């Protein structure tokens, strides 16, 4: 009889929120593999019903402390479509600047504190800080710039509140923006140096047969607008999101699993964005991609850290373009409540964030549906682990566990967001092995 073994990670470290991994093996066959999300469900979609539309951007922003801008951008644009409100061009530019700030903060923290320990064989971000002070300081300086962007447009850096239907509550002061631009220009070299440091680390290779999905815009690197495209020819309007992607409940998770109808798992996030939008990168980001081009020949979730590094450079250039091209005070269009539906899909740091909303004639939420990136990636994370495990079955238990956890972290899962979503348990059925 084949040997039965388990891998159990009861509380996944260096991911956002509470989850676990359970793997059961019989010989070399995986009999069970579950990325378990046990963080309690949060019922945002239920308690937002009946709330005023203008409250929704700030309320949904509280879903996540790392990507509040994503929730604000998807929800406010869904509401604007429902109400027939069109923001003016300066607002559009400021929204790109605002999103760039969030990409910088989120990517940089993941790169040095969550991902780097895996590539250095260290336990945590503190050890990285002790032993590799320069790159950590560099990332922290760059993160601060992202933080300044959020504070400038969101009125405060944590739980920002600056977004309103049609624009921002307050237009930023041009002098503040120009000071920011000057610092961004100075620090872009730092972002390049940080990516260079990651290219010297032992970043594994784990190419996958996976469909990459991201937004694509006719002229720009995608953030707030574009069509949804994939590496296998999908090309749809965002309004077709709900018809194209389906979510299913799985018993082991408080997050829903997403699939492309009739096709299966897919991958969203920085790797998909960079891969599908190479020709939309800024010259500096494009040069950065060229320096790691071989890591993008095939979809490889392990190369996500490079995609994040490239996007930090891109975000700096996006922020600079938004500030340099800013035409001055944005005006907020007036709006009146009306019954209507709106759908928006934007590129959160971790990938597509879809929000569909239906408002009633009184300007209250009748229905809202929120599909965060981590729940879209969940099925793909499990598929990735199913592909990885057969290659590492002969490795010691601890190493198997570490490799599985590291693979999960490549997706930078945000479990707190996905709960509408880790610990690893590998079940090999052999008491000697289930340490």
């Amino acid at each position, binding site marked *: 009889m084949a040997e039965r073994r388990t891998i159990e990670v009861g509380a996944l*470290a260096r*991911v956002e929120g509470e989850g676990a991994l359970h793997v059961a093996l019989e010989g070399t066959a995986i009999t069970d593999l579950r990325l378990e999300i046990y963080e309690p469900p949060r019922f945002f979609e239920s308690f937002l019903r009946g709330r005023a539309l203008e409250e929704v951007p700030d309320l949904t922003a509280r879903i996540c402390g790392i990507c509040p801008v994503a929730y604000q951008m998807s929800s406010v644009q869904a509401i604007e479509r429902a109400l027939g409100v069109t923001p003016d061009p300066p607002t559009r530019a400021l929204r790109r600047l605002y999103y760039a700030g969030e990409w910088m903060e989120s990517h940089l*923290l993941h790169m040095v504190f969550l991902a780097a320990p895996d590539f250095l064989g260290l336990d945590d971000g503190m050890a990285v800080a002790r032993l590799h*002070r320069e790159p950590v*300081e560099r990332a*922290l300086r760059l993160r601060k710039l992202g933080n300044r962007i959020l504070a400038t447009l969101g009125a405060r850096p944590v739980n920002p509140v600056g977004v309103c239907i049609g624009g921002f509550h307050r237009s930023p002061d041009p002098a503040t923006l120009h000071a920011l631009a000057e610092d961004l220009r100075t620090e872009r070299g730092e972002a390049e140096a940080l990516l260079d440091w990651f290219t010297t680390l032992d970043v594994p290779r784990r190419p996958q047969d996976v469909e990459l999905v991201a937004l694509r815009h006719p002229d720009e690197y995608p953030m707030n607008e574009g069509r949804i495209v994939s590496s296998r020819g999908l090309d749809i309007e965002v309004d077709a999101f709900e018809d194209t992607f389906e979510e299913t409940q799985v018993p082991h998770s408080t997050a829903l699993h997403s699939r492309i109808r009739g096709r299966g798992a897919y991958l969203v996030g920085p790797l998909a964005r960079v891969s599908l939008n190479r020709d939309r990168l800024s010259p500096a980001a494009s040069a950065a991609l060229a320096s790691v081009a071989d890591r993008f020949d095939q979809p490889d979730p392990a190369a996500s850290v490079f995609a994040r590094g490239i996007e930090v450079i891109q975000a700096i250039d996006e922020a600079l373009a938004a500030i340099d091209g800013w035409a001055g005070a944005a005006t907020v269009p007036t709006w009146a409540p009306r019954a209507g539906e709106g759908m928006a899909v934007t590129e959160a740091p971790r990938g597509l964030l879809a929000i569909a909303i239906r408002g009633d004639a009184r300007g209250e939420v009748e229905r809202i549906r929120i599909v965060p990136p981590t729940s879209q990636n969940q099925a793909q994370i499990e598929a990735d682990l199913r592909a990885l495990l057969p290659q590492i079955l002969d490795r010691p238990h601890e190493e198997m566990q570490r490799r599985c956890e590291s693979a999960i972290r490549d997706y930078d899962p945000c479990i707190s967001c996905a709960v509408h979503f880790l610990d690893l348990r590998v079940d090999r059925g052999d008491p000697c092995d289930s340490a």
Partner: protein
Amino acid sequence: MRLRVIGVGTDWGDDRAGLRVAELLERRLPADVGVVACRNPGLELADALRGVDAAVVVDAVRSGSPAGHVRRVEPEALAEPRAFSTHGLGVVEGLALARALGCAPARLAIVGIEADHLGGETLSPAVERGARAACEHVLELLADLRAMQPDTGGAARA
């Protein structure tokens, strides 16, 4: 000698206590003592501590004491840093990061003000009184920190 008072907090209820102390002390400190407000201690305490010879960190605490109670907290008595998630970093993690980066001064004191409720936009009256009492405590600590021999390496004794 360069000294700094760092008021840690958020804008929510009694969690403002550390920020309130920074605000109250701003005009009361000698020229060589800087005051900063720190709203994201996990990632920004290291920066706030950088480049000074001694620092006092003031933050709201919850220990079961009466609201507004001011106490000296020994850095060693703080809980272990939590597993590093970028979502929830506090003073403990911020201090650990500052030490890892080598930018925590050897002379460091932490003052805690017992919080009552963490909602709303104002301090509860007992905590406002606590913040005022904490200012006096901070001034005494600064004098102690200043008097310490630079090579003692440890925290000042209150």
